[in-house]
């Protein structure tokens, strides 16, 4: 099936995160940009023998300006909806050349990243296709800042309900312009591609966990997918110094669930694991929502609606926080 992958051991704590920097100075991301941290952690975990392909979005436009690149590893742009195809093409090219003896054999990590616009919206079919090719080792990382943040903050299929964006501004008649609930991407991909050995959610606020997820994805073999929640000071409208904290609050309120699905087994991580076991109580969603300007127009009823939806995912869903449907109850 798959060729040999690199050896990338799991880390136990921040001190074991590699010193290697593959994403350095030379970018123009906003102050407090969590996605920039995600890029840095991603390539620290993957190491120098890695090819990174990035689809259009903040992490293209803000990172790589001609004559100044932050990438120490080989990096190439791909189109907005092409992270899946870019990963497949890169991996297929390497595999073919190595098999035919035209390139020295070596396990080279292939990572393609996309934002939520490129991954959850436009690139979904190409990602799905990439996840069907178990002969190629590749990782697709979706850095989700919950809007098309590079083009002026427009709502995406991964934006939260009610969020103010330049395409969903609260108005005199319509207070809530984004009435779509955030797409449940990872379970969709996991359920739809049962041969995929690794899919996970992640958050840059949890560095060692993030590192280990990247490494597990790159070493398990075959195509893999990681979806990371990235607080965005510009799009979410908060003081840049709170990015780290907001990432944690997304998890602690139960709005974002941290888990990985390894060879068909679901493992919850960190606070999400504690919440699911009843060891820890979820914080109210207002702790998270009211810290962000994009939700400033929400009324008491709106906030209650949001809380009810989150409660429902934890209390009514078949797999709490993850899978909404289950077997029909036949009764006794």
């Amino acid at each position, binding site marked *: 099936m798959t060729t040999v992958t690199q050896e990338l051991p799991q880390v136990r704590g921040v001190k074991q995160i590699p010193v290697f920097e593959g994403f350095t100075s030379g970018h123009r991301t906003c102050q407090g940009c969590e996605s920039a941290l995600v890029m840095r952690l991603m390539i620290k975990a993957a190491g120098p023998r890695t090819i990174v392909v990035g689809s259009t979005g903040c992490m293209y436009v803000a990172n790589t300006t*001609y004559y100044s*690149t932050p*990438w120490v590893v*080989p990096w190439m742009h791909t189109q907005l909806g092409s992270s899946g195809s870019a990963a497949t*093409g890169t991996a*297929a090219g390497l595999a*073919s050349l190595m098999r035919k003896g035209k390139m020295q054999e070596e396990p080279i990590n292939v990572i393609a990243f996309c934002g939520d616009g490129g991954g959850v919206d436009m690139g979904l*079919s190409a990602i799905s296709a990439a996840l069907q090719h178990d002969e190629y080792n590749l990782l697709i990382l979706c850095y989700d800042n919950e809007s098309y943040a590079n083009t002026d903050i427009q709502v995406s299929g991964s934006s939260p309900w009610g969020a103010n964006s330049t395409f969903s501004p609260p108005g005199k008649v319509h207070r809530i312009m984004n009435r779509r609930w955030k797409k449940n991407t990872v379970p969709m991909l996991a359920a739809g591609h049962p041969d995929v050995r690794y899919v996970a959610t992640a958050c840059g606020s949890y560095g060692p966990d993030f590192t280990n997820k990247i490494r597990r994805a790159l070493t398990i073999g075959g195509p893999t997918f990681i979806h990371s929640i990235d607080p965005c000071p510009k799009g979410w409208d908060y003081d840049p110094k709170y990015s780290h904290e907001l990432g944690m609050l997304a998890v602690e309120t139960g709005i974002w669930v941290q888990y990985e699905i390894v060879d068909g087994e679901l493992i919850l991580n960190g606070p999400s694991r504690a919440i699911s076991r009843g060891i820890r109580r979820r914080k109210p969603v207002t702790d998270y929502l009211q810290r962000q300007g994009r939700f400033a127009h929400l009324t008491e009823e709106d906030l209650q609606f949001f809380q009810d939806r989150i409660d429902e995912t934890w209390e009514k869903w078949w797999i709490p926080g993850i899978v909404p449907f289950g077997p029909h109850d036949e009764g006794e």
Partner: protein
Amino acid sequence: MATETLPQTEREELISGSEAIAIACSLADVDVITAYPIRPYDTVMQYVSKLKADGAFDCDFIVAESEHSQFEIVKHASAVGARTFCGSSGVGWFYAFEAITVTAGLRLPVVAMVGNRALDDPGAFGVEHNDAMAVRDLGWMLYWVGTAQEALDIALLSWRIAEDPRVFLPMAISCDGSFLTHSQAIVNVPTQEMVDQFLPQYDRGRLQLHPDNPITVAPQVNEDWLMEIRRQTDDAMRRSSDVIREAYEEFKQLFGRGDDSPFIEEYMTEDADIVLVGMGTLAMPVRVAVRRMREQGKKVGFVRVKFFRPFATDEIREALSHCKAVGVIDRDYSYGSPSYGGVLFNEIRSALYTLDNRPLMQSFIAGLGGREVLVRDVEEMTAMVQDSIDSGQVKEENTWIGVRE
């Protein structure tokens, strides 16, 4: 490179244009091939997949989930140094258009087959040239094939030309749907040794994306640098003409076949008063008609344009500078264009503008949607051009041939 002709050890096969290109893929040892179904180009991928299934051809053959992905996959495979092939037809080619334009922008030598097909709506399977022509301004080299033999030959030439570091541009091989993709003819299939001698391995050099060469490809340039980069692509296209000539001469010496020019094919043009111009398989009925009219004493000739990009301005000027009138037969349309003429017509007319003695120019739209262009249609067009010569002026600059009113 050796220049003496190798012993004639080619084998003859009765195959279609699509099969000829599939065999060329195998002979060229293409590394990554992507497929997505749409008629009529997809026959080439059916042959490729069978070659792979039978163990006759080792390549990564990927069935993509859309044409966009199909072209994106080979684009990225090409960036790491893999030889690539893909293709499409009609609206499928258009679905891939974003990937198609960036492939040229990235200077990646992807080779693609276009099985020319009418653009929807309304649906039609037959040939029109508008699909492939849409890339004419984007940095793709664009060739129109006349026979199945030429399909195989130009495919081998395509990788040689596109992968030349002086060029590094993608190339599209346009094959008329059905008339070429599905019609069988006797084709001389060269030996592996001959092809190996002609076609070196693709070497992306210092542009290869690899951990040993950690470059950043395609960072955002904006107004600061885009114009310089556009100019570099323009220079590459300008350089491609010499590379094409060089490769074609070597091909002719090694394989023992080919025309005088890689860019155009002239047929009975020497003393012609009227020269008809067209592309692709249209050449077949036109040649028959020209022969018939010659028998009747009419001085008619034909120029088949093979390379549409790069456009052989000088050669076309030379070929059309001695006649009284030119009739351009377009298997395409260009709504609202100058004189409502076809695309090829306006290109030719533009190329001839600087001639001292410009011939009269007449545009014909014919054979759209795969409608057959008959010998009598060609005779009718020629008669209209003759009328223009006789009256000293072109009354109708553009005429659609064989349209029911």
